[in-house]
């Protein structure tokens, strides 16, 4: 517990008002065929901030978060990540991707590699770390997410919650400045959700910049600095958790909250 307290004090020491803006989106729009998935989305996220994106399915949350490391390409507007603008330039994309960690709904671990190799592969070949150092880092990351004993197993031998924690460790191994979470608990059995959320909380407390798409209202209330509510490809409302859950201004937000709470 003492550990948690010191870490939470780090979190309270943050000066978000003066922090650097690390993700800037200006008028981002994206179409899939004729369907407009993102409609003029503008938002900024500051260093060490935890942003939770809520909204009904099909509202464009996942599309937006995937645009930020260019797994999807936006067609209008600008996205700046840590001062680098995302464009078709391959070198920029690779640079941004190695600064931004991503955790997927379906884990997407590499099934042919052991847990240790899953985590150390990218540091060795992308960050060009010596193998020994990368494997040591993998062990300490597994310790951090609470499954040090699973290092030599294959992903298929782990439970869903364990797999998702390995996926988080894999993203952290690249020492990213930003972590993106795309519905990290949606594919999990209920009793495994907590273990993943605990890891995410710990990460938030350690001062990581996080952008989380989720349906976990408890997590949003407890951890988020800012909640963004999306619908129809637009950000409808942005605010602190207190504001969002107790006193939303928009009709659509109220309707959404009434349906899920």
């Amino acid at each position: 517990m003492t550990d948690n307290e010191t870490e939470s004090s780090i979190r309270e020491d943050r000066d978000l008002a003066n922090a650097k803006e690390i993700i800037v989106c200006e008028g981002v729009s994206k179409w899939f065929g004729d369907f407009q998935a993102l409609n003029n989305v503008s938002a900024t996220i500051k260093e060490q901030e935890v942003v939770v994106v809520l909204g009904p399915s099909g509202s464009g949350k996942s599309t937006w978060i995937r645009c930020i490391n260019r797994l999807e390409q936006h067609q209008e507007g600008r996205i700046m990540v840590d001062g680098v603008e995302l464009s078709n330039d391959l070198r920029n994309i690779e640079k941004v991707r190695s600064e931004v960690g991503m955790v997927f709904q379906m884990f997407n671990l590499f099934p042919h590699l052991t847990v240790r190799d899953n985590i150390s592969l990218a540091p060795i070949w992308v960050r060009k770390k010596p193998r020994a150092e990368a494997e040591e880092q993998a062990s300490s990351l597994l310790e951090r997410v609470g499954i040090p004993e699973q290092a030599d197993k294959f992903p298929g031998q782990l439970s869903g919650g364990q797999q998702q924690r390995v996926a988080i460790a894999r993203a952290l191994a690249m020492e990213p400045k930003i972590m993106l979470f795309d519905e990290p608990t949606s594919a999990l059995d209920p009793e495994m959700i907590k273990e993943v959320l605990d890891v995410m909380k710990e990460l938030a407390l350690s001062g990581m910049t996080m952008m989380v798409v989720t349906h976990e209202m408890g997590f949003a209330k407890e951890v988020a600095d800012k909640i963004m509510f999306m619908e129809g490809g637009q950000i409808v409302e942005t605010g602190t958790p207190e504001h969002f859950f107790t006193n939303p201004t928009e009709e659509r937000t109220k309707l959404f909250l009434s349906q899920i709470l």
Partner: protein
Amino acid sequence: MNSTNSTSQDLINSDSSTELANNELPPKVAALSPTEWLKANLFSNTFNSILTVLSTAAILLIIRGLLSFIFNPLRQWSATATNMRLLMTQAYPEHQYVRVWVSLGFLLFLTGISLAFWRAGRRVQLSQVGKRLLILGAFIVLATLLAPFSNRATIIWLIVGILIVGIGLLLKPSHEDKTISSLTLLSGAFLLAILSLWVIPYGHHSYLSTRTPKILAESGTVAMTTKLPWTIMFLVAVCSYFLGSFVREKIDEAKSKALLSVTWLISPLFLLFLVLRDPDFDTRHLFSTDVPIFLFFSIVGSVLLLWLTKPDVGEKGRVISAAILFIGFATFLFQMLMIVRILTLVLAFFALAAPTFSGQKPARIRYTKVWIASMVILCWLITAINTPSTAKVPGDFFIGGFAITLMIFFFTMVLAFPLGVLLALARTSKFPIFRMISTTFIEFIRGVPLITILIFFSVMVPLFLPDGMDLTEIAAVTIAFIIFEAAYLAENVRGGLQSVTQGQHEAAEAVGMTNAQKTVFIVLPQALRVAIPPMVGQIIATFKETGLLAIIGIFDFLYIARSVIPGQTQFMGSTRENLLFVSLVYLVICFSMSKASQRVEKRVGLGER
């Protein structure tokens, strides 16, 4: 999940824990007595009974027909036995024949060590062995009664059959725990076969390829030049197995397994071009041309690659690699040694791949070592091929028969596989030009019969070659096989590539891997795993397709059996015997490959789900 489960079970069985223990094993099914088994499986109703009787009669007739064909006194089995050497290696010179045995011995040595390192073989229950022996013995007895044997032969074979049945009966009731390694069984069978060479008077047959070929057929055991080498081969295989299991404990297993795999790939080249072909090296040319070229490329290449694999080289490196590739293509416009052209292209390939494998010092040194090793192999191989052979034989190639079947098969597999992977990657690539070239190539090759391609390559291609370039028929035909198989393998690999989910691509991209890294480390390993079963089918098909060599007149296994032996005055019209022998060899090899592949499939599936 587990805890909820056990509590609910506890609730149900709370007062009868003994019952729970009983329930853990499924109830044993009582074994059927032979009459019950017959009734249940063969004579369950009138219609089935009629079918059983009819098909039994048909099977017995077929066996009888086959046996009376094989053991008919008119059959000239000595045609096959006398020409065994011809069938296996064609007219390889007698005084250099020890080279063939050395090559075979080396391959067996590798086999023994590999079997030990990969812990091949499984435990077989003695009772199962007994059951098999019982069936085998019963079959021999049945066959003996059906075959048109002389009285003496009938008695001998009946005794053999009854002996085997007896051993089977003895072993059948042994306990489930008593097992024996399948390798022990296999080597036991080989030992018996080799011992029989020393004891049983098979007869002493040989075909002496002197100026006027002579055929020797005497009674007694087989010739010393046959039984002695085979005994040595057997000992080499067994000893190397024990050597392997002894050494295995003492050294780094993963590394030596990698070394063994590479040796398997390279040793056929050495055996073929250094041992069997026995090139007559010209020392002066060697030291004035070949060695300097090798030294130049390995030193300049190493320095270049050491620099290119630095993580921070960036754009300059790519420009230089592209320039080398350009130079590599440009060399074809000028008069120069082929070896220089090839090595420049290989260097360009290594340079282009360098950023993918860049890293800290150990990684860079490893990459450079791979470069030097490939230089050693390539330079030596090209030099050896360009040097005339001392094995003087009729025809333009130094070996034939089964050996050439194996050789073409080996080259086809080793070269068609990477080419097929490249074609599959090109066909699924984002670049339209790659996609178009690859799709056209694959569809064209798949739309043309193999025999057409073979004839085209053996007859037409040598005519189209530019002046000064020469291609032996064997090389042309091997190239034909390679492109044909590559097109088919590419389709198998493409199936595997499509089975890799979008999520895997995204995960690899999200950690910042380049396209090349994603392909090498994430996509291909998963795709090839999925593609193994269809690829093994393709490999077996390839092996059988080598029989087509006979049609275009290459002295392969089948050609010698079908056309050469029946042409010898003593053995006129012995085609059927030889063809039966050839098909038996093909059957044994293809069947073992398919069995082995089933085990590989099981093993690779591990850790997948």
